């Protein structure tokens, strides 16, 4: 469809590869096996809260971790759209995918693109085998949305770098193997210029991981104190001074995926299970229909970004748009479910029951529109993107 007035923010046509249908069926069969095993429990926000290294390894055995990495590095050499099919199936099922999530989504592609041949040979096969889990070390206490203000320093030593500073909200740093850390290597006038990325071994001397408990009491995040951590030269990721460029280059991957609208999808499934007990009211039907239409429409936009990424472009504006729409829906879904089937949220109810899932989704809900770039900042990217196209 190509109207003569071009759409201000274009999304390409979505054509899933022939292999996608078979792949989807294979993932569903795998999920059925895992359900029987008791590992897939239909939980909300499973890409943050569902850490299960055994599940990640079994998934990797199927070739579904790091699947877009080339086969010469242990990957499956498949496209972004095929990866999309796999991860949307996993998230919709509420499968525990958080152990390998960052390795699969960011660390793998980033090392492939910016890493040395040695880094690729060392890390990528391990990532694809589900044996090497990464965290992201970007935010700091005083650097949230304004990421370029990071103050963690990397000072030159004879054979590498010494890192000093504290990274905040580092998910999984207490259970994962490595973190990709953004640090200042030069005091350049342009504050975007003096940043570099490092691969930091989270078990290295001088790394102290301090838990930060979520308001639910869960331990997912940490403060990672880097107290003079020696990082060898070989662990600089990409070019010195290119950190900002590398970080912003990943944003479209980070912001547009199905994890930006499916975090509370398992709660909608739970609602439908409840509604099957008795004839639904008109209002319940209306709201379920409206939510479903919105999910479907956002999924189409998200797939459009995946198609653009597959074609090699960098649709940052579109990705910001998907994230704002999708993460707002994650919250709206939770509120709507509560309102059309009044249920007191109960964190102590039997796990997996509707009141417990509602409690879990609610306690996680403020995070949806914060992580991966606060939505207020993203909206600035969207309007700027549109004005530039005029």
């Amino acid at each position: 469809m190509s109207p003569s007035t071009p759409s201000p923010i274009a999304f390409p046509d979505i054509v899933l590869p022939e292999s996608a249908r078979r792949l989807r069926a294979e993932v569903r069969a795998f999920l059925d096996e895992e359900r029987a095993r008791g590992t897939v429990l239909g939980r909300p926000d499973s890409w943050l809260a569902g850490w299960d290294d055994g599940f990640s390894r079994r998934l990797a055995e199927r070739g579904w971790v790091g699947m877009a990495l080339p086969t010469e590095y242990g990957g499956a050499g498949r496209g972004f759209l095929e990866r999309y099919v796999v991860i949307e199936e996993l998230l919709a099922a509420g499968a525990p995918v958080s152990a390998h999530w960052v390795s699969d989504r960011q660390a793998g592609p980033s090392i492939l693109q910016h890493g040395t041949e040695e880094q690729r040979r060392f890390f990528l096969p391990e990532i694809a085998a589900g044996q090497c889990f990464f965290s992201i070390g970007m935010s700091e206490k005083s650097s949230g949305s304004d990421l370029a203000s990071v103050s963690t320093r990397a000072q030159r030593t004879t054979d590498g770098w010494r890192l000093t500073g504290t990274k905040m909200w580092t998910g999984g740093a207490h259970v994962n193997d490595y973190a990709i850390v953004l640090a200042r290597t030069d005091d350049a006038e342009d504050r975007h210029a003096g940043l570099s990325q490092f691969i930091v071994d989270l078990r290295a001397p001088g790394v102290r991981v301090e838990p930060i408990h979520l308001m639910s009491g869960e331990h997912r995040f940490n403060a990672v104190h880097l107290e003079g951590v020696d990082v060898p030269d070989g662990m600089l990721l990409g070019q010195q001074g290119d950190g900002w460029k590398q970080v912003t280059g990943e944003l479209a991957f980070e912001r547009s995926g199905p994890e930006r609208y499916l975090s509370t999808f398992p709660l909608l499934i739970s609602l439908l299970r409840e509604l099957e007990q008795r004839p639904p009211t008109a209002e319940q039907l209306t709201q379920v229909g409206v939510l479903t239409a919105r999910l479907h429409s956002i999924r189409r936009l998200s797939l459009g970004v995946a198609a653009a990424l597959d074609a090699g472009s960098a649709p940052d504006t579109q990705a910001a748009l998907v994230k704002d729409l999708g993460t707002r829906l994650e919250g709206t879904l939770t509120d709507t479910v509560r309102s059309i089937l009044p249920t007191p949220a109960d964190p102590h109810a039997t796990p997996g029951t509707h009141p417990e899932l509602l409690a879990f989704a609610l306690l996680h809900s403020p995070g949806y529109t914060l992580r991966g770039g606060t939505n207020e900042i993203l909206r600035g990217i969207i309007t700027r993107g549109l004005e530039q196209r005029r």
Partner: protein
Amino acid sequence: MNTHTIDTGTPVIPADAYDTTVFYADADAIATVTNTTAPDAVALPCQDASTAELLAAAQEAGHRAVPAPLAETALVARPLLRRAGLPVPDGPLSYAIAPELTIRYAHPAASPVGSAGCLGHDDSLLVTGTLRRVPWARAATAVVVLATAPSGPVLFTLTPDQAILTPGGNLAEEPRDDLHLAPLEIPAAQVRRISPELLDEARLRAALARSALIAGAAERCVDLTVAHTTARTQFGRPLSRFQAVKQEEARLIEEAALVRAAVHAAAAPLDTGGAAAHFTVAAAKTQASASAAEVTRIAHQLHGAIGITRLNPLHLATTRLWSWRDEDGDETYWAHRLARPLTATALWPTLTTTP
């Protein structure tokens, strides 16, 4: 044709600031847009255009607030006539789907002979009742009616001059006319027995055509709003430099993109039919209708006072959105159709049917 000046005769905005032909619909304006020779016209797409091309044309018509039943003709009436095996008349067409009519065979003794889809010995109908709020009836060369006869669903055509027409309009003053048939004999040559599926396809076609119009009008709201906030200066800087404005404008852009995506998603399924067509079209119209509130709210708020007047073209889009969201099924109707077959186990497979 109406020109646009204030009482003093001094134009407040230049006459060419927007296309006044789309302001008030009249016969000339309709002729302009349905005539391919007009330089700035959105022509009726040719008959063999694909559904995706027709939807793009409808979106364009919605964007320009074209004063003619372009989407109604190209996406609804013509395909239905072809599917029923009736000739397709030239010019703008309209439709009425499942109106409340009393239909009997003009010659009852002969009626049982015809079989579904075929012309019986005498399928002439005697039709009584009112077709309500028919889009552009006064300008249509024919109106396609899908209704239920004693034998089952039928499709027939009539011309507006065969009925008593009571003019009416929607919020954008697009013609929505009542046609009183009291009673009217429809000769067998203009009648076809149809399958219940075609009756349902008609609903889907009408809903998707309307959704495409909504997508275009929503996009117009984006274009006008961004142009306005970029050009308009207050407190020494363009409105678009204010964070509060950016936040709202981004939501507007997002909502319009959402509608476009939903319409786009239904193009291929409409051709193949079946459950995928039901789901994607119901989702498209639910989303399009539901988004109209947010789109119009933000566009008007960011336009300020000028937007609520006819000095500015915004109303061309927003008044249409307020009417189109109700026409051919509002979001409640389509949300119900969408939700009714959904179960806990069916939801995800349904969402991933396409692609």
